[in-house]
């Protein structure tokens, strides 16, 4: 008896120790390496945003460069291209968000109707693939496809359409960017909606059927309401990308002829800020974009918490 009791006390002691100072220190030590990397590569660069308020000259460094207040931001508004670049970014990103939600949802609904297991699996294997290839590789595929003498033009020629210089056309460039982005992501994007579909209670369909609901009515009144929370959450998440029109994609596909319709904030910052060494201007634009993005992300988190009872972070 006594022995058991003593053992019990010991156990309690050990448990307390497990939550005592030693283990606090251990937890801190575990966080340390990662936090050091974040300090150097995330938090220190954040200090670099002071360059946005300077006329930064690399040779003088941040401490030696002169302060110019909001001059960089004023200049940003005065550049004639500013409005165009902002419009390009928002237009391309908006279409990507809209079609990038609708197409995966519709695809998930259609795929859900296919009941032959092996066919479904094969289709899934194929449509998920483009998502894992880089834009470097896919840009080569897209350029080849839309080449002046390429497959798309050959196909159109059978309908008597004259060859189109897709990659050098301000009329077509945005469509190609939006289309190829949806193409890359729709398969992978449908995974989450397929999961949502399997989560809908089959009893609801049975009940609807007994009430004489047609398939179309079942879709409208059972399936879509069941998927709505997840669609809302994904849309909220995607909305945070309204200023991210997809640097990797556009950078690999654009050329000076289509700057008019295809140049976005990120490509501009890279070209003018980094290659053109206008560090202060580039940082100022980046800062503005970052603030808008962070604000949207926080709102999206609130919204998804409210509508879907899910939190992103």
């Amino acid at each position: 008896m006594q022995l058991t009791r003593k053992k019990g006390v010991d156990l309690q002691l050990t448990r307390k120790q497990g939550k005592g100072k030693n283990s606090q220190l251990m937890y801190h030590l575990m966080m340390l390496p990662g936090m050091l990397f974040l300090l150097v590569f995330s938090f220190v660069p954040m200090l670099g945003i002071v360059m946005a308020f300077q006329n930064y000259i690399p040779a003088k460094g941040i401490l030696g460069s002169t302060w110019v207040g909001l001059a960089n931001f004023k200049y940003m508004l005065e550049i004639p291209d500013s409005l165009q670049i902002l419009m390009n970014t928002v237009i391309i990103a908006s279409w990507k968000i809209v079609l990038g939600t609708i197409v995966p949802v519709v695809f998930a609904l259609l795929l859900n109707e296919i009941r032959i297991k092996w066919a479904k699996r094969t289709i899934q294997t194929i449509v998920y693939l483009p998502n894992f290839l880089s834009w470097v590789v896919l840009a080569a595929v897209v350029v080849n496809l839309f080449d002046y003498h390429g497959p798309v033009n050959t196909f159109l020629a059978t309908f008597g359409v004259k060859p189109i210089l897709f990659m050098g056309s301000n009329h077509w460039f945005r469509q190609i960017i939006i289309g190829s982005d949806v193409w890359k992501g729709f398969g992978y994007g449908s995974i989450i909606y397929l999961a949502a579909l399997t989560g809908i209670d089959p009893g609801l369909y049975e009940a609807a059927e007994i009430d004489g609901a047609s398939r179309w009515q079942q879709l409208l009144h059972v399936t879509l309401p069941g998927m709505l929370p997840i669609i809302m959450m994904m849309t909220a998440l995607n909305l945070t990308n309204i200023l991210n029109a997809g640097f990797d994609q556009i950078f690999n596909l654009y050329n000076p002829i289509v700057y008019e319709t295809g140049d976005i904030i990120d490509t501009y910052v890279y070209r003018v800020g980094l290659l053109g060494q206008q560090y202060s201007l580039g940082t100022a634009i980046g800062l503005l974009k970052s603030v808008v993005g962070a604000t949207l992300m926080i709102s999206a988190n609130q919204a998804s918490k409210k509508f879907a009872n899910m939190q992103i972070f």
Partner: protein
Amino acid sequence: MKAHTSKTANFFIWLVVLALTASCLLPLLNMVAISFSDSASAAANEVGLIPIHFNLNSYKLILEDSQFWRSFGISVERVILGTAINLILIVLMAYPLSKNKRVFHARNIYMNLLIFAMLFNGGMIPTFIVVKSLGLMDTIWALVLPGAVPIFNVILLMNFFKGLPDALEEAAIMDGASKMTILFKIYLPLSLPALATVSLFAIVGHWNDYFSGLLYMNRAVNYPLQTYIQQLNIDITKITDVSQLSSLASISNKTLNSAKIVVSTVPLLLIYPLLQKYFVTGMTIGSVKE
């Protein structure tokens, strides 16, 4: 449900699904076919899905291309080194963060710092200046260290750890196990699917990234493979007038470039079955409530 699907509806469902599936597969197959064709047919855009004048010349040329293999090697090195660093840091951070505030007092402070770093960043230019002033330019470290902590993946694993029963840890503490023992002997073996997901995300991310190579490598000999391929594609972005654009197909070495692209995707295709197995897990555990 099935009985209600009319034949016409079924036909259209299959038609749309198969068309979308074909759209994902055919352009890629075209690329493969071009890589096995002769240059003349490729330049004349005659190649469809089957190679014309099938030959392995492009692949033989690649074998002799030392820069291609050097870049390939840099990419492999980067994937191994980068993924290892990512995994160690993710695991070490996810464990303390999965504890609540009463157990790990500073937990919320760290969490807020992480979220702040995820939402907000200094941007391309300040990061570039930091990497440059640390003397990392033209070294493999410039490719792996700036992204050493993938915060989204830390949160993903943290959520997975949170789902493990507390009783496991309590039992281990009673047996006198240390935090490290608990993490490595109890938590990790139970988290294999989540770890696989996180590693695969890291591998694909490192393999596919071309931009840090472009930013941080001054000398082309140090380019990882995707940056090397990106430079092959680049002639299209350097073009300034329309006439150049239409003659591009004939001047560029289409078959060789296609073969290089095909070889560069082979490693991804090799791990693709694994990817497919685990990324569904990733998408579902990634969006867990806190």
